[in-house]
């Protein structure tokens, strides 16, 4: 089951650049939450702070409180532990190029020391089914490299890989921006199904996509969260002038 995330006064820096300024919001459990905003507005930085990926960059720094359920992820846990519970799907599909499809999906478990073959088999099958990829790859699970799949398949493989470690939250950083419309709609269908079991946060440049998949939407601008509200409200009667300008295409 998914778990909610509460963020309070989150600030983030890359070197001297203050990229995220005093962001506070509540991401409800088992819902899809979309984050929109122009390039460089801090939405990617924001999701990378949620699973502490932000700090893998040596110049990066973050301050503030992020609560996952009752767990303060910056105080009570190690980064690797957090990342197992908060999965991530990146903008460009990034399967491990030298691993088979099977090993890609199993990697999160195998590389953390889990070796029980029968259970791994089950998890790989279940994850690939959840990611709607099983039918397309079940015959060459161990024969083909993850990199030999098409772009859309690779992205679903990456989703399966993230699901295999059984996270509670799934962060998706523009998961469909490098894909064609057919693959994009497959990913969106997936998000729809997955949110019954996971809390999903999706960064997107595509406002129709936000409107289609997310219950709540947040609008970021120059490192600040301008507005956070139910999606239909953001798109029909935004309370902030800047939000309205952005969604009506007046800038950005």
């Amino acid at each position, binding site marked *: 089951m998914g778990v909610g995330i509460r963020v309070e006064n989150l600030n983030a820096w890359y070197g001297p650049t203050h990229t995220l300024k005093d962001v506070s919001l509540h991401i409800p459990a088992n819902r899809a939450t979309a984050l929109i905003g122009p390039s460089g507005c801090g939405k990617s930085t924001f999701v990378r702070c949620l*699973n502490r990926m932000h700090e893998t960059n040596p110049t990066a720094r973050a301050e503030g409180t992020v609560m996952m359920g009752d767990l303060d992820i910056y105080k009570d846990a190690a980064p690797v532990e957090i990342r197992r519970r908060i999965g991530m799907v990146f903008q460009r599909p990034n399967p*491990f190029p030298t691993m088979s499809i099977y090993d890609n999906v199993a*990697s999160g478990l195998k*590389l953390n020391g889990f070796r029980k073959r029968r259970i791994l088999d089950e998890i790989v099958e279940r994850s690939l089914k959840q990611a709607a990829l099983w039918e397309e790859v079940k015959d060459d699970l161990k024969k083909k*490299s993850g990199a*030999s799949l098409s772009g859309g398949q690779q992205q679903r493989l990456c989703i399966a*890989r993230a699901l295999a470690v059984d996270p509670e939250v799934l962060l998706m950083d523009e998961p469909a921006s490098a894909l064609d419309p057919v693959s994009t709609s497959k990913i969106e269908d997936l998000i729809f199904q997955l949110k019954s079991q996971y809390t999903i946060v999706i960064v997107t440049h595509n406002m129709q996509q936000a409107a289609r998949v997310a219950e709540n939407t947040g609008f970021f601008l120059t490192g600040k969260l301008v507005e956070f509200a139910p999606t239909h409200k953001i798109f029909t009667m935004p309370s902030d002038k800047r939000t309205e300008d952005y969604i009506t295409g007046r800038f950005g």
Partner: protein
Amino acid sequence: MSALPQRSPGSERALRLRRSLTDHLVTVLAVGSTILVLVPLILILGYLLYKGTSSLNLDFFTKIPAPVGESGGGMANSIVGSAVVLTLASLIGIPVGIGAGVYLSEYGRGRMLGNAIRFTADVVNGVPSIVVGISAYAVVVVKQGHFSAFAGGIALSIMMVPTITRTTEEMLATVPLAVREAAYGLGIPKWRTVLSVSLRTASPGIITGCMLAFARAAGETAPLLFTAFGNQFWSWDLRQPIAALPLQIYTYAVSPYDEWHRLAWAGALVLILLIMISVTLVRIFAGRGMLKGGN
């Protein structure tokens, strides 16, 4: 289109001719350079085959050198000796080289120690091999009190480490950040990511680097002169002097006897063939079980 100045049909034709000429000229230059690179290689191999094959027979691979004045004999002990010394050198040089490369690429970026190691590796790479031999002599042979296969292995491993270190570093640098991030995003710790993701993704290039270092070490004579020293007999003791192909070739080549000269040619041929065979075998075995990306 309107932004471009109008050209007369005549100058248009001249321009097209010039482009096509330049294109051909560059192609010819590139092909010519390739041939220039290949010619010495083919000449060396051809000449070795021509000079060496006549002295190759079963004795060459099964017998030890004949005493001065007697004819016949072979280089069996040198072939085995080279294999022993090279195995030792690889056992020391490959792990140390890869380890240092991993440190440079994954941990030592922008640090003093990292820069120091990188600089040292480049300097050692340029040190004449005879100097490496003398260093190994001073450090190992003098301490032990005698020449040994072990000292030869150390000397050759010093020759191997810089190449392996720098190739490992460069190959790891080509692993995309996205691939590492994928591993971090799954909660895989950094050390595991380095071992199972980055090194694995970079392994074809790293293996090539190791093979280059191995092939170079296999042909080195100078570092072995006062370490492995050479031996006219069988020796299985790592603490004793041991024969090696380059040493035996050297001894025979500078000798005054025609038959020894012929044996030296045969030895050189065998050395090159053995290097080619071992490099090919490693490539075949390392390529197994490795899935290649489709795009």
